[in-house]
């Protein structure tokens, strides 16, 4: 509780965040190039987060568009109350969770390998006519095993793992993104890591 109250103080610090500055520039000057700069810096990153969340490249790109449309529509009321990245990832997380709820059981099938569009790994694996080097096959198996293990995590644990492992967020930043406490984040990460360790034990040690 104290942690939540403390967070709202000292909001001036976020005015130095370069992305927050771009957002304010877009808000005050209605300069589309500022918003485009913001997109160039963050689109790919957010798209990858969503892609790892929903395991579908095309859907990830569509949902990332939604994230930026939400950001665009919020510009007129924008004031930096947190780092831009934690705010943007909060929106990305909410949109991904809504999508999962909307298509429960359809978006993320636990047996479904990660979909990359034309580079879909499953297509390559199933093509028996093409012989492949052993290490490439091993890598593909590892990609599928890791993707599946992450997809099987509960949504909260998955969010925390993705943010720390792939986005390099601190515990504090994850807590802000997920609107929870640092100790809750540590607990989520600990449970997620235990699960991943168990599920990947064979493939990692082998």
């Amino acid at each position, binding site marked *: 509780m104290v942690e939540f109250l403390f967070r709202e103080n000292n909001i001036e610090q976020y005015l130095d965040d370069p992305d927050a500055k771009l957002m304010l520039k877009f808000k005050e000057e209605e300069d589309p190039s500022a918003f485009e700069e913001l*997109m160039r810096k963050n*689109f790919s990153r957010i798209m990858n987060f969503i892609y790892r969340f929903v395991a579908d490249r095309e859907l990830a*790109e569509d949902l990332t568009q939604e994230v930026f449309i939400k950001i665009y529509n919020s510009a007129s009321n924008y004031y930096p109350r947190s780092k831009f990245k934690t705010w943007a990832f909060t929106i990305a997380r909410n949109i991904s969770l809504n999508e999962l709820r909307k298509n429960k059981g359809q978006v993320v099938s636990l047996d479904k390998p990660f979909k*990359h569009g034309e580079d879909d790994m499953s297509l390559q694996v199933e093509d028996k006519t093409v012989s492949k080097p052993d290490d490439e096959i091993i890598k593909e198996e590892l990609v599928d095993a890791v993707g599946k293990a*992450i997809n099987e995590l509960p949504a909260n644990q998955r969010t925390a793992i993705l943010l720390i*492992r792939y986005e390099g967020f601190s515990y504090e930043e994850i807590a802000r993104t997920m609107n929870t406490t640092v100790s809750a984040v540590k607990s989520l990460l600990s449970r997620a890591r235990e699960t991943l*360790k168990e599920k990947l034990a064979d493939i*990692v*040690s082998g």
Partner: protein
Amino acid sequence: MDCKRLKSQIYEYLDNELQEADMQQFSEHLGACAECQKAYEAIKRTWDALEVLPNVEPTPNYMSRFWAEVATRQNVVDRARARLSQMFLTWKLVPVYVSLCLAISVFAIRNYMQFEQSRQILAEMSQEEIEMVEYIELAENYELIDEIEFFEDFEIIQNLDDLSVTQS
């Protein structure tokens, strides 16, 4: 630092969340303890394995797609706004709006006059009359209350248990 403490801090070490002093103690112990190195390597292998997930890039036209989508949605909002304007901001509806305004004005004036009248009556009333008005509901039921011997009945009901004990 002992082995138990090091093992509890492996994840925080990998996440770069240890304080500087703890980080140094951790590294020193890890360099000197084979058992801890083994535990650390096992966890790190799983952690490193997560790196294999591929990165994806947005389609090259993602920016133009975005602005096109913004324009489409803006058009939808503009069209809805224009339709609403057409519906409500038209000269045909002026008599309706004028009638509504008149009706609201008449209602407001009537309420104000009633309020003023009540205030005047209240100002002319004595304290006794005001009390009577306050307890007007009791006055309405006065005859009924007078007819029933309520308090006597109430006492009987209250002492019913005692009476039955005495009888037995």
